[in-house]
């Protein structure tokens, strides 16, 4: 085997490894419809919160949490046919996810309380509407950040 052939074969093998690991990462990302479901559900809960009826608010929040949890578990445990290695995600990804949740919840609550203080009608609906826009627009962005993190950490990048 000449060195030229060896290096070409090695480069082809590295390319194959790279492609296969991208395949694993891409199948693990949450699809767009998930963010729509989370966003629309948030607004529904916000609208119920505006009724001021504790019973309905508790029921709506519980149903919403159950729905999101069930779909998440189905996606991760049932539908997923491979689980991305935890080392590919790591602390960086956890920070990105927590920051995303913090911004969405924080801004939604801030807007809702501000509107309520200003005696604006339907503060819960408008507050969660802001959160929903952030989730629907930011969810896919979060996925692309996670994708970048995982791609940077995959085996072929390790030196």
């Amino acid at each position, binding site marked *: 085997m000449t060195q030229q052939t060896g290096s070409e074969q090695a480069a082809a093998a590295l390319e194959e490894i790279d492609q296969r690991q991208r*395949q694993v990462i891409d199948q693990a990302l949450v699809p767009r419809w998930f963010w729509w479901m989370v966003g629309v559900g948030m607004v529904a809960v916000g609208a119920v919160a505006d009724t001021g009826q504790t019973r309905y608010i508790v029921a709506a929040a519980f149903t919403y949490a159950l729905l999101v949890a069930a779909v998440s578990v189905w996606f991760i445990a049932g539908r997923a*046919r491979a689980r*991305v290695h935890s080392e590919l995600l790591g602390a960086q990804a956890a920070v990105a996810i927590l920051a995303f949740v913090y911004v969405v919840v924080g801004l939604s609550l801030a807007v809702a309380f501000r509107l309520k203080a200003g005696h604006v009608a339907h503060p819960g609906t408008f507050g969660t509407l802001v959160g929903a826009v952030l989730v629907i627009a930011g969810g896919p962005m979060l996925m692309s950040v996670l994708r970048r993190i995982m791609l940077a950490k995959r085996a072929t990048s390790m030196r």
Partner: protein
Amino acid sequence: MSVARLDPMIHAPARLTLVSLLAATEWADFKFLRDSAGLSDSALSKQLTTLEQAGYVKIRKGFVGKRPRTWVQLTKLGRVAFMAHVAALQEIVEQAGASVRAG
């Protein structure tokens, strides 16, 4: 020469594909590996058995509801061998690049 460090168990094309897929996962199921690698059931079984005999993968069978499923996981030994293989490949490419630059 770096070629000596290439792992023949991993270097075979079908097994390179499978180990690359498994290296990015905690586990993967049989169908995922079959569809991703474009192998038949029997070809995949054969390659997985070879990797299992080398101690590179662990195969677990079970059920999800009433459906039988097979999960495959890269072992610690398999992961170490894969990383060494990748490092050897990178070294070969880098050495070739260096010799071209020097020439």
